């Protein structure tokens, strides 16, 4: 058994930022990651991260303020954001940029040496800090570099377990006590006891077929805490990015539109302008609106083909594309064999971001003691019902740090309780047995077939437009697939060592369970708000409420709760059992 103060699951931007803070808190920290941290999908984030740097807008002679960042996010999320969590994000964002700069981050800069900013959708002011269109890659390198520095200076405080797959979150009497993980290369399963655990596993997009998420984002990251008793919030809010490169599931960053690219239909018209809801914002319309209107344009028969419209960068000019969007050009050349300097890019909307996640308060606390979550896998309600571009990268840094601070305080106050050895040994035996059972079938249906049917159902019924009938059908499909999973599925390789087929199969269980929760949450929300659009309930109902899912004894319970208001601290106190 390995023992640590703090275990961080996930080595993306949230996990690495949390690790740096964990060491600063004097904790013995282990980062457990399914892939090497620098292979995490945070590296694919392109556009940038939002922070108010007090810049002046030369054209309109006004200055950006924290209030504007707060207000823009609130409006973009249809007032469904948690005001306390959002305020923290906005307030701490500028400090996070300075901190990254101190650590050597290579942001793009203006000729006067100041940090450059660009416009992203739904924001009243250009406040997105970036590094050409490789922002995630550059920040991930900086964070990992700082982790190496810490490890070289304080080798006993920070340890990385790369390519370890977390199989179980250990909870005893609603207090976290560690994890069980499997080392992929050796197939060895091991107990990691911990006084506190931070969850930072990122998105769950691979439940869908039409997604720009990586292979690793299976939904398992949400399933493991769910199985341990954690509640999930706002799971019906799935964000579809408007511009995914057609035929490849690769995202073309919104920074392209921010830099001036336009969307065109088959006839070459700028069709977005013809939809009345496109002009809610001064700059670019929010992602939900654009994705819906692309879909409407295609359904009206004005798409380039059955599923695409054009993204046109040609007006930007060669030099601008080469300096501000080199990654976009590279992706188009590699995957679509076209050069956006001269050609229009066929694009279609696709799943991009899981807005919902493990329910947390603004301190990254969940309803399990000692268990914290941050980043895309968590949901403190920052994004409301529609995430504003550039806020999620900032969320990883702000709440990654907060999670480790909360974990530090929790450990120092000695709230943790570690169960005895028997508990751990029994848990390990139980998990080993689960894998043994999974490997038993010698023939039947392959995991990939189940996954394909799940992906198809999610794309068809749980996409940009949803309705009750389709969601019910999707729910029935998931029920059937879960049954097949537990009775007829079989896995080729029978060893646990370097068996990626086995890992895929384990994760598929999580995908199916989370898919079902997304479907049931979408079915339950009988209104349209933000990214969740119901054809059968096209309008918004009264004050926004958030949804909360818990599973107890195989029974799923969904509740809708009032979002606390900032002006009344009493409501905030009572609506959140943790504060």
């Amino acid at each position: 058994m390995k023992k640590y103060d703090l275990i961080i699951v996930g080595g993306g931007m949230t996990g690495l930022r949390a690790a740096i803070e964990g060491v600063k808190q004097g904790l013995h920290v282990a980062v457990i990651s399914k892939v090497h941290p620098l292979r995490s999908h945070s590296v694919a984030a392109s556009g940038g991260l939002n922070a108010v740097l007090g810049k002046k807008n030369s054209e309109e002679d006004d200055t950006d303020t924290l209030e504007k960042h707060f207000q823009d996010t609130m409006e973009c999320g249809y007032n469904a954001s948690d005001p306390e969590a959002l305020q923290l994000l906005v307030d701490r964002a500028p400090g996070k940029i300075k901190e990254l700069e101190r650590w050597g981050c290579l942001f793009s800069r203006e000729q006067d040496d100041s940090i450059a900013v660009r416009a992203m959708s739904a924001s009243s002011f250009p406040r997105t800090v970036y590094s050409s269109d490789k922002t995630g890659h550059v920040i991930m390198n900086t964070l990992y570099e700082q982790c190496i520095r810490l490890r070289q200076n304080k080798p006993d405080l920070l340890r990385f377990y790369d390519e370890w797959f977390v199989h179980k979150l250990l909870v005893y009497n609603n207090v976290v006590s560690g994890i069980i993980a499997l080392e992929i290369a050796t197939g060895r399963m091991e107990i990691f006891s911990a006084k506190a655990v931070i969850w930072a596993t990122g998105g769950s997009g691979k439940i869908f077929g039409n997604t720009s998420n990586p292979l690793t984002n299976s939904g398992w990251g949400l399933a493991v805490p769910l199985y341990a008793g954690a509640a999930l919030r706002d799971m019906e809010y799935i964000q579809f990015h408007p511009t995914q490169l057609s035929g490849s599931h690769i995202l073309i960053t919104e920074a392209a539109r921010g830099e001036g690219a336009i969307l065109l239909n088959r006839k070459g018209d700028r069709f977005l302008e013809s939809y009345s809801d496109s002009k809610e914002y001064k700059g670019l319309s929010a992602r939900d609106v654009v994705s819906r209107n692309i879909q409407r344009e295609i359904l009206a028969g004005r798409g380039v083909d059955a599923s695409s419209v054009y993204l046109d960068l040609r007006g930007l000019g060669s030099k601008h594309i080469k300096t501000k969007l080199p990654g976009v050009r590279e992706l188009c050349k590699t995957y679509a064999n076209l050069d956006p300097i001269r050609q229009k890019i066929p694009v279609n909307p696709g799943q991009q971001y899981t807005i919902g996640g493990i329910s947390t308060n603004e301190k990254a606390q969940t309803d399990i003691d000692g268990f914290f979550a941050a980043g895309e896998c968590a949901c403190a309600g920052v994004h409301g019902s529609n995430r504003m571009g550039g806020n999620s990268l900032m969320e990883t840094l702000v709440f990654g740090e907060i999670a480790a601070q909360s974990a530090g305080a929790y450990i120092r106050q000695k709230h943790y309780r570690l169960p005895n050895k028997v508990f751990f040994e029994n848990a390990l035996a139980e998990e080993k047995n689960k894998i043994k059972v999974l490997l038993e079938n010698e023939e039947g249906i392959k995991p990939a077939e189940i996954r394909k049917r799940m992906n198809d159902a999610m794309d068809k019924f749980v996409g940009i437009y949803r309705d009750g009938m389709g969601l019910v059908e999707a729910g029935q499909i998931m029920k059937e697939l879960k049954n097949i999973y537990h009775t007829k599925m079989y896995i080729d390789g029978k060893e646990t060592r370097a068996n990626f087929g086995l890992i895929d199969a384990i994760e598929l269980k999580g995908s199916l369970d989370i898919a079902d929760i997304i479907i049931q949450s979408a079915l339950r929300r009988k209104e349209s708000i933000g990214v969740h659009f119901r054809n059968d309930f096209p309008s918004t109902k009264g004050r926004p409420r958030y949804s909360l899912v818990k599973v107890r004894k195989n029974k799923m319970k969904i509740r809708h709760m009032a979002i606390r208001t900032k002006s009344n601290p009493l409501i905030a106190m009572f609506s959140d059992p943790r504060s």
Partner: protein
Amino acid sequence: MKEKTYKLSVFRFDPLVDTKQRFVNYKVPRNEATTILDALLYIRDHLDGTLAFRASCGQGRCGSCAMHINGKYGLACETTLSLGNNIIRPLAQLAIIKDLMVDMERFWEKYESIRPYLVRHSGEARQSYANRKEMDSMIDCILCGACFSACMMTGMNPDFHGPAAYVVLNRFLKDERDTIHDQRMELVTGENGVFRCHSMYSCNEACPKNVKPSENILEIKKNIG
């Protein structure tokens, strides 16, 4: 009508079980795959679930799937399947864990040994526009390991840092905010250091991101000379 397929010969070896390394042939339907990675995933999903390889982002950004494809190093997710036989090997110079999955430990160790982080003890560090501009070409390295495998010197000399580490080193040598320029140089001037590179440009050819490690190494050498 006969179904049209892509042909692949994939390196298979499990050091704990197999006595011999071998190539196994697979056929993948053409409508199921565009890239080498698509085909490998198809094999794992439908033909043989025991095939071991790393993959994640599928869009040339994470560096997981670097391998040797049809005589050249590259990322499986960025390389289009060819109509002839597609011969897939793991990265060279690194121990095989299973099939196309190699032990990257030595690669990371070299990367970490050049102290890949900014060292600055006081105050804010504002980088100038000009200094940032100089780094445009080197920030693209995704540490996939292709150059390390292609480099003859990393194979012959276990103490040689390898091309990727030198790209990162050069990035920090150039950074006007860094304060340990001299210590960094000491790291690489020894007999196993940067002069072990004989400028064969194998790394440049292997790099899927066009980072040009050779040019970076030449710059470091000039720094010394």
